[in-house]
């Protein structure tokens, strides 16, 4: 969502200035977006400055601390961590966004269908969710990832494995929100205004659920990155790829801290904290944006 859909007054003077002004007031959104932009810029423009091949083992001398030549140092396997961060950040973001996006999408669709149409549709979706929820997802992910041909374990299949059982959370949350939302009077008014069922779902109810959808999305990205991380921990991921989780895990397996190679685990950990931290801040900011009452008091 951008500010242009919700200006205080119809603006004909362009959207940029009010947007920036708004970011000044909504600090978490502002800071979150700035961090995210820096990270995106890092991984996008980084591609021009590093050789992506250096993100793989045996490319550079191993175990070098940060220096002018290797700003983030190099690891045991002879990866340039700068290159590894550029490539790995991209891949981590990819898994997060793909898995988070698909999971949230399925969750929102099922949540809406379930709550809006009710009846047996609702009952069956809810029952499936309730049955699946208590089963430790990891078991299923591990078995599925384990039975795949290792060459087909790519960043993308990784995302799909992660998303497999990640949709129940958003489904239940969205469902309960729609249930309360659809009893609100503006839905009746929209019906009177001739708005179709789909219109009511997408134009009347959905925008009000954006904070929840965004929270679900952030939650899903968190779960995706986390799941990708522990699949890596169990040796089921595409281990060769410089996914942030993989780098951290390999560092841990080689006792990087103990051996004094602090830069090896610390830098990808910081990357991870920044990615998810910025998403969390954006999420907080979105709450403020979509809740007019907060906006008024700002």
């Amino acid at each position, binding site marked *: 969502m951008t500010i242009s859909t919700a200006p205080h007054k119809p603006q004909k003077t362009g959207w940029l200035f009010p947007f920036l002004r708004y970011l000044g007031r909504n600090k978490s959104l502002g800071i979150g977006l700035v961090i995210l932009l820096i990270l995106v810029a890092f991984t996008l423009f980084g591609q021009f400055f590093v050789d992506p091949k250096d993100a793989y083992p045996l490319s550079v001398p191993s175990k070098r601390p940060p220096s002018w030549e290797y700003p983030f140092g190099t690891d045991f396997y002879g990866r340039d961590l700068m290159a590894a961060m550029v490539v790995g950040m991209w891949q981590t973001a990819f898994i997060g966004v793909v898995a988070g996006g698909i999971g949230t999408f399925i969750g929102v669709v099922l949540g809406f269908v379930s709550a809006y149409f009710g009846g047996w549709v609702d009952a069956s979706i809810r029952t499936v969710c309730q049955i699946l929820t208590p089963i430790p997802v990891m078991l299923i992910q591990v078995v599925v990832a384990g039975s795949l041909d290792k060459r087909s374990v790519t960043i993308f299949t990784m995302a799909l494995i992660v998303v497999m059982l990640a949709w129940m959370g958003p489904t239940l949350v969205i469902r309960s929100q729609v249930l309360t939302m659809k009893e609100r009077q503006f839905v009746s008014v929209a019906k009177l205004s001739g708005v179709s069922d789909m219109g009511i779902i997408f134009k009347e109810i959905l925008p009000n659920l954006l904070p929840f959808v965004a929270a679900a999305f952030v939650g899903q990205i968190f779960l995706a990155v986390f799941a990708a991380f522990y699949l890596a921990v169990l040796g089921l991921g595409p281990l060769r790829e410089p996914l942030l989780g993989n780098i951290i895990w390999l560092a841990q*397996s080689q006792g990087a801290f103990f051996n004094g190679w602090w830069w090896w685990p610390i830098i990808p950990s910081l990357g991870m904290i920044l990615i998810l931290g910025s998403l969390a801040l954006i999420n907080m900011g979105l709450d403020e944006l979509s809740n007019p009452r907060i906006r008024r008091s700002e």
Partner: protein
Amino acid sequence: MANFNFKIVAAAIVGVAISFTPSAAFAQTTAAVEITPDTPLEDVGRENTLVLGWSVSSPVGVTNPWAVPGYSSSEGNSLMWEGLMFYGIFTDQDIPWLAESIEYTSDDYTSLRIKLNPMAKWSDGVQVTSKDVVFTMEGQMNNDLLRFNKTFNTFVDSVIAVDDLTVDVNFKVPAPRFKFDVLTLKFDTGMPIVPAHGFDGIDNVNEYAGGVDLPHTGPYDLVAWNQNQKIYNLRESWWAIEAGLSEVPDVKRVVIANLGGTIGQNMDTVAQRLVNNEMDSALDMRQDLIASILEKNPNITTHSGSEAPYGYLDWWPNALWMNTEEGQFADVRVRRAVSLAINREQLNDILFDGAEIATIVPFPLFPGLQKFMDTDGVQALIAKYEPGKYDLDEVASLMSEAGYTKNGDDLWEMDGETVDSTINGFEGIHSDSVPILVEMLRRAGFDASTNFGTDAFQNMADGAPGLYMFGHGASLKDPFATLDFFNSRNAGTAGEPVGAYQFARYSNPEYDEILNAMSVIPSDDPAFEGLATQALEIYWRDQINVPVIQWVHRIAYNQTYWTNWPTAENVGVGVNGAFWHKTSPLVVTNLKAAQ
């Protein structure tokens, strides 16, 4: 509002209470399975206690060596069980133990006589007699779950108790290695003697956990075992003291601290705990970790002191195995190309700080085997086959010859299929080497990736496409045992799983003939060296698998509380210092208190 709060609290309490109910039920069972001393253990002090770190994987309470597959000898249980003889690898000497002597009684190695040590006693005071030896051997013959079942059925015709202290073993075929392979304890192999009277009234010996009740001959008694640790106390009445085989050991208590997880996980924590003197020794480490340990705690040493490779050779040199009968690696040119793609010098640099650990043979270079490697015959073969060669151009010409072309990703391809070179291996022990091998293979155009997954071993057993990083646990003195893995006896049936060390599925009558000839003669027989050289030539010619690295045990010996660890400078009785090997009683009982 007050009412509301009250209800919430009440409901929460009920909820928590109910979720605890099943665990309470389980907690009662817990007391039953854990081994807890009846009376509190007397305090022997840290200075008399040996603390060893290990990821204990065998189930609590299983001390019976015949409990298959729960029993493991590596988690302190080897302190309870002894064999007829030990072998000191560094002195190349037999150390008679429960047996005073074991002699072949025929020139063609078809019979053998065991004389027991008359002083040997079980922990319950009962004497060790030929009845126990016969019981142990017949058990191996008749119980197909036991480890030496196949060996016994291949070689042993009968086991006869001549008198209380003498046992004769008669073989069906010449068995020159039986004494060493089966009857002698060394590294993690050899058969411990179990008490015949300990199994009285046990219907299913494989199902019997043993616990603290099973009489044993070793110097330590299990006194406590839970998920956190195992505790063994010295039994002062240990027969070997009276028999003059050992002094009264300084180590009064051994604690095996459970490091949790799977083996090789969180080794930096283990390292830190060693540095903190919490533990005296722990399982073996990767190169850099042990170097850092030595740097941080000067009291800690290793087999090679403070020099690389910080340890000694283990008997488990690793190779990239493959299914030589089916799939892409059935073509010898492809196997050879894999070997040519590996830069062993670079492996030495990255993994071993330059120490020469990368290898070209599937057996460990212990003195006897090094001697074999130094013979002119083998040196000529090395010159001829260049098994350690790294040459990407030759990879290219071999692969082209085999019908492969490079595809858009710069990978070899035939009929749209790349060469599936997924390396199946094990996290922890392989996480330093496999990623590097994968990269070397990729650079040579093989579609390599890492599989540390749950199915890695299954893939190996099934002969699935890809490479298998696995060792060879066999040869110690001569190359026979390792080379025998490639005898077509071990090739298995196509499509059926095979056991460990049989992954090559290699089958070649010419090779079998050589190995069969070797099996009936001892290694000091004049004909042996020639046969072994012939077999090794076929091994290299056919590139049955691709040897990569020798296995080094880099074990930290903390001298803060304990000295006299077996090292290169202080070989002692000559056994290796791994406390998880079957020779551990000799290591532990020889330690001297530092304070």
